[in-house]
């Protein structure tokens, strides 16, 4: 690609991103009532970054990550700023589509498109892009990204997480990453620094768990579109500022729970969202669900719950034990469908469905994401057997299918409402 064309692509992608982000933000803020005051931090954050292009992290060197399995504690301990690059932008999806397979996954296409366009300022300063060998498309994308001139580090993930062999392999892999990170930033990962990093992330996760618990309340004090915005901000925000902002939001939500305040209708059907990750600005499905009067009270996606739920536990305060401890956090509880067996995801969905008292599950899969498309069958069966209805939606980043999705979600919401009525009728 010549320089001129590259520049043209970049400019149009930046413009496209700003436009779709603005549109999403307007929808998120203005098509709903009673947004929590503490959400302003996040609305402003997205506005500044996605719409005005003010990305920045202070002075730390940038390390990009391409999946949920990259141990961010190590990046922090090496003195760098972890930035998750997985993109939800239709504009970048289109850039990627020019050279990626037509039937590929939009998350991968948009992410590769983002890197190709070099549209965001931090991309110019990427010291390392850590690409876990998660699914085949991501794995292979690493090679393409390297060809674009980025320093790519391929983080090997075992295909299973049930055996000790897989665990040992992963421990070695993470150990190698820590050495690579030290080389990249020139800062050694010391006991003390790793401690600080674990403390930072554990505090964030504790706050996230508090947040999730508040969403269990009946009626729900928060809409899912805001919740997803919060968790998505973890991709690019400073972790400590993020945690503080979330703590403020939690305080406000606590008051709402006490007073039984809800931004949704009082009897809104409660949904659990799972499947391929919704990443800003593509909050198409969640927005649609909530515009139709339902509320997302929980999610099981790698841009939110899977990213933030688990905390690191250490046995002894030494690097030889702490690095494997950090590694375990990213392998053992991970319910990503890349692993050969994923009973745990099924169990998690069932557990969350009853824990959050949901009326139904919405399973979104982007066309081209074969793993989530394949897993929907067994997940759907297990949920249905447990009496939890599931709606499977196949979608992508383009706005074209909004009408068709809307019809299907509306019918699903209606069927849940009918069910509720019948149950209540039976009771009275």
């Amino acid at each position, binding site marked *: 690609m010549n320089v001129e064309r590259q520049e043209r692509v970049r400019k149009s992608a930046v413009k496209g991103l700003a436009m779709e982000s603005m549109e999403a933000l307007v929808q998120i803020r203005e098509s709903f009532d009673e947004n929590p005051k503490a959400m302003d931090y996040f609305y402003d954050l997205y506005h500044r970054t996605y719409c005005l292009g003010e990305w920045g992290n202070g002075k730390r060197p940038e390390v990009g990550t391409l999946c949920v399995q990259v141990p961010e504690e190590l990046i922090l301990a090496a003195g760098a700023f972890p930035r998750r690059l997985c993109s939800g932008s239709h504009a970048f999806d289109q850039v990627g589509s020019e050279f990626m397979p037509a039937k590929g996954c939009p998350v991968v296409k948009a992410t590769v498109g983002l890197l190709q366009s070099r549209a965001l300022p931090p991309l110019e300063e990427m010291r390392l892009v850590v690409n876990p060998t998660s699914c085949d498309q991501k794995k292979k994308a690493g090679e393409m990204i390297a060809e674009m001139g980025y320093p790519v580090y391929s983080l090997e993930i075992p295909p299973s997480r049930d055996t*000790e062999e897989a665990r040992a392999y992963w421990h070695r892999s993470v150990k190698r990453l820590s050495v690579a990170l030290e080389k990249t930033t020139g800062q050694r990962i010391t006991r003390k620094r790793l*401690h600080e990093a674990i403390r930072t992330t554990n*505090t964030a996760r504790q706050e996230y*768990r508090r947040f999730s618990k508040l969403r269990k309340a009946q009626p729900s004090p928060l809409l899912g579109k805001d919740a997803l915005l919060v968790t998505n901000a973890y991709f690019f925000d400073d972790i400590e500022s993020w945690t503080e902002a979330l703590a403020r939001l939690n305080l406000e939500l606590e008051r709402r729970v006490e007073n039984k305040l809800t931004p949704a209708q009082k009897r809104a059907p409660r949904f659990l969202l799972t499947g391929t990750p919704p990443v800003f600005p593509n909050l198409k499905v969640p927005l649609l669900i909530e515009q139709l009067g339902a509320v997302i009270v929980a999610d099981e996606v790698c841009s939110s719950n899977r990213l933030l739920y688990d905390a690191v*536990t250490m*046995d002894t*305060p030494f690097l030889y034990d702490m690095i494997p401890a950090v590694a*375990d956090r990213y392998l053992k509880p991970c319910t990503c469908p890349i692993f050969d067996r994923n009973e745990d995801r099924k169990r998690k969905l069932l557990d969350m469905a009853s824990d959050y008292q949901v009326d139904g599950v919405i399973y979104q899969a982007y066309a081209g994401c074969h793993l989530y498309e394949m897993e929907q069958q067994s997940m759907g069966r297990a949920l249905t057997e447990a009496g939890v209805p599931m709606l499977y939606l196949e979608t992508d980043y383009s706005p074209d299918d909004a009408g068709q999705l809307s019809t299907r979600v509306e019918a699903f919401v209606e069927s849940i409402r009918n069910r509720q009525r019948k149950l209540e009728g039976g009771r009275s």
Partner: protein
Amino acid sequence: MSTVKKRSINHGDVNRFRFWFQIGAFVILVYGGYWALDISTSLPTFSCVFPSSRGGTCYLYPLQHQVNMTWKQFASPRVIGVLTAFGTFVFLFLLFNKAWCGFACPIGTVQDWITRLRLRMGIRPGVYTEATFNRLKVLKYVLLVLLILLPLGISNSLLGLPKFSHDVATSFCMLCPGRTILPIFTGDFSQLTIDFSSKTMTVLTGLGMAVLGTTLVGAFYKKRFFCLFCPMSALHYVFSKGALLGLKKDGAKCTRCGNCYRVCDMGIREIADDLERRNIVQDDCMMCFKCVAACPEEGCLKVTVPGLTVYQSTEEGFFARSASRLNHER
């Protein structure tokens, strides 16, 4: 129990509690005799018979003596003594289950101290594969069978073999690191020798010295190394199901995050991966309850006595412990 009390317990650091409890138990079991203490001669823990100041006696010692009788004698009133001792052992064991290992056993405590020393020195532990240990673990059952068969073979001819020498009467004690290590704490170094009085004794005490060395070095690199081979632990496990103190797991609440397995000194993988069994005590478990403290899921792991939960995993407790730990290291 009031909620406040319950919360403060669930927030507690079981490791620190155990550390001090072990010291107390060690003093009682090794020095209790100085205060004329004699808890029982059927203790389900390695309260070794060799330190004269002991506050109670390990059941394996009387067990080896008592089974040393002829088949005929087994039908005589002499068997009442055997059964009484056995009954006492089972009773005491059932009260505290394998917490005898984690909280009371002096040899376990000494090994934990060795681990602390290693940590203090900043030396890393050895890394072994799970498969190796699964193979070695069978040894404790072999030792248990031998420690009963050998004394039996003194009074009786087993399978037509000639009767064994009296020197194997307490053969396990000769091998046990309790005999060599614990008297040292009372200033008695006399067990640190090889007894050349007979061939059998030479072999047994020689092996005993070898076991001593292996235990000390082993425990330095692998937490609770000796416990993997402990026949007392094997004997415990036979009765563990009926014990009052329990360690219960609610598989439905488990996310298999592996935190419990990661902190387990005995490397018990079932604690994380077994989702079916409610009673999760395994034969190597010493009921130290580190797993409960490391579990972030509300009520997934519980320490129970019938009708009551004594200590359980909570999200709040997990983060409180983690924060205090990280603050401490700062």
